[in-house]
């Protein structure tokens, strides 16, 4: 079992992640904070998320398959246990809340659509995604 991601890990990569996100969203570096929500605070569009992941893959020389965050959150739940017809089940929502621990609980809604999950993502979510990809690459 990989050790938990801690603040020191995040601090180490945060400046490079923030820079990639600022560049993707064409914002000044000062506008990007660790707790900024990509789609809310930083007004990202769906294509921006693809661009951010592309830039992070290039910057950190890692591979991040699209949809990785949701797959990781699902963990050992079956697809049917996790979602039904594109809507998160109760168990799926619980898993997602645990996995995206940086996202405030009140941002999760019951019967949340899978397609809406990226609206929860914060800059910190991207940091954790990169750290997991780095560990997977090193393993």
């Amino acid at each position, binding site marked *: 079992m990989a050790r938990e991601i801690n603040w020191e890990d995040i601090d180490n990569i945060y400046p490079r992640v923030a820079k990639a996100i600022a560049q993707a969203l*064409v914002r000044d570096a000062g506008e990007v904070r660790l707790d900024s929500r990509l789609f809310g605070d930083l007004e990202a569009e769906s294509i921006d998320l693809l661009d951010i992941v*592309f830039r992070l893959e*290039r910057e950190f020389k890692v*591979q991040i398959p699209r949809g990785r965050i949701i797959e990781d959150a699902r963990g050992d739940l079956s697809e049917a246990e996790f979602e039904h017809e594109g809507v998160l089940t109760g168990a799926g929502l619980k898993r997602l809340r645990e996995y995206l621990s940086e996202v405030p609980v009140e941002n999760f809604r019951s019967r949340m659509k899978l397609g809406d999950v990226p609206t929860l993502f914060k800059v910190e979510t991207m940091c954790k995604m990169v750290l997991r990809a780095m560990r997977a690459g090193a393993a």
Partner: protein
Amino acid sequence: MQDGPARDACRRGLIMASRRRVAITGVGLVTPLGNTTAATWDALLGGRSGVGPIRNFDAGGYPVRIAAEVKDFEPPISGANRKLLKYAARHTRFALAAAQEALADAGIHPEPATSTRWGCVVGSGMMGVAFAELVQFQHDFAPAGAVASKLVFDPAMPARDPVAYARNQANSGLGLLVQGFGIHGYASSVHTACASGGQALGLAMRLIRRGTADYVLAGGFDSMINPVGLAGFCMLGALSTDNETPYRASRPFDRTRNGFVLGEGAGFLVLEEWQAARRRGARIYAELAGDGNSLSSYRITDSHPSGDGPIQAMRWALADAGVAPSEVGYINAHGTSTAMNDRSECAAIKAVFGPDTERVPVSSTKSLMGHLIAGAGAVEAAVCAMSIRHAMLPVNANLAESDPDCDLNFICERPVSSRVGIAISNSFGFGGSNSCLVFRNPEDVAG
């Protein structure tokens, strides 16, 4: 009941009286002569050439190493629209800057209450995928020549830029313009090679006439000064090879002309329904009064030596505006500086203008700014609007030796100060599309 011509004239009179007129109230230009309308106009009147050695890329091994490039361009885009630049290829950046200047110049822009009455029509799209991105694709996925399809989505391969696809779509410029300026009414992108810009303005005019829109942001933009675009025109033998004398390379209608000079840039106009423009006290450069389109249906790159095709475009445009050839005070010629175009265009002008050919002043501003391809028609429409407003006719530069096949009343050596009542602009494209636009002095419009 009247018959034949009398009935047609009567009907035309009724149409003219009841038709919604179209005012040009804003102009924006990014050209090889300057990155604003004022800078471009100043260089045109000063006879300063925009042609020089190619700086966009290393053209050292090409037979043509000169072009009319846009220089020192920084898109003056700020605020929320800054992000649009991420999706904007070089020519689209020109478009965003020229459109922004045109709207600022007009002093009007789409607002929530009016945005569905705004349209946007552009001429663009000669080039698609940027060369560097093609090279990268070839390098990564087709190392042996053919695409190795398994490599394209192989996770072990370098990550691909997902934005490149959005940036290189043929209509990405149109998409960014309507998003950037909040246009919600009507949009279309015209591509008929070098006739694109002229046809886009003609379509825009018709949108206002028929009531589909009250305002249209209309123009053209292009850049083919890249390794693929330049090679293509070199292989067609269409370009001047006068690398040692770039400023003289484009010499439309000169006996020694030997091809066109590739240019790049953008031209945008704000078109408004006439009465609306009058009510708000807008400065009106000119009425966009007529549009004629024809198809030569002849050959891919040749123009018919008789002028067939351009003749109809000019006649239909004049008829559309209700104008006789005797009323025309300036022709901004297509005038590419190729042997064939210039001869064919002269034949067409003579056929249309008959005895007025000796009187009507003609110039090709491509002599200074090169050929902006899909952007040319829109930029040259802007030149006509400026000529009417300032009562100045720009020069046909570099016309030193007259060609017996090209014996029109060219504006040589220096610009001419002359009030213009009616100006026309020609744009003809590979593939046989011909566009002619007619512009009327606003002082000559009642109401």
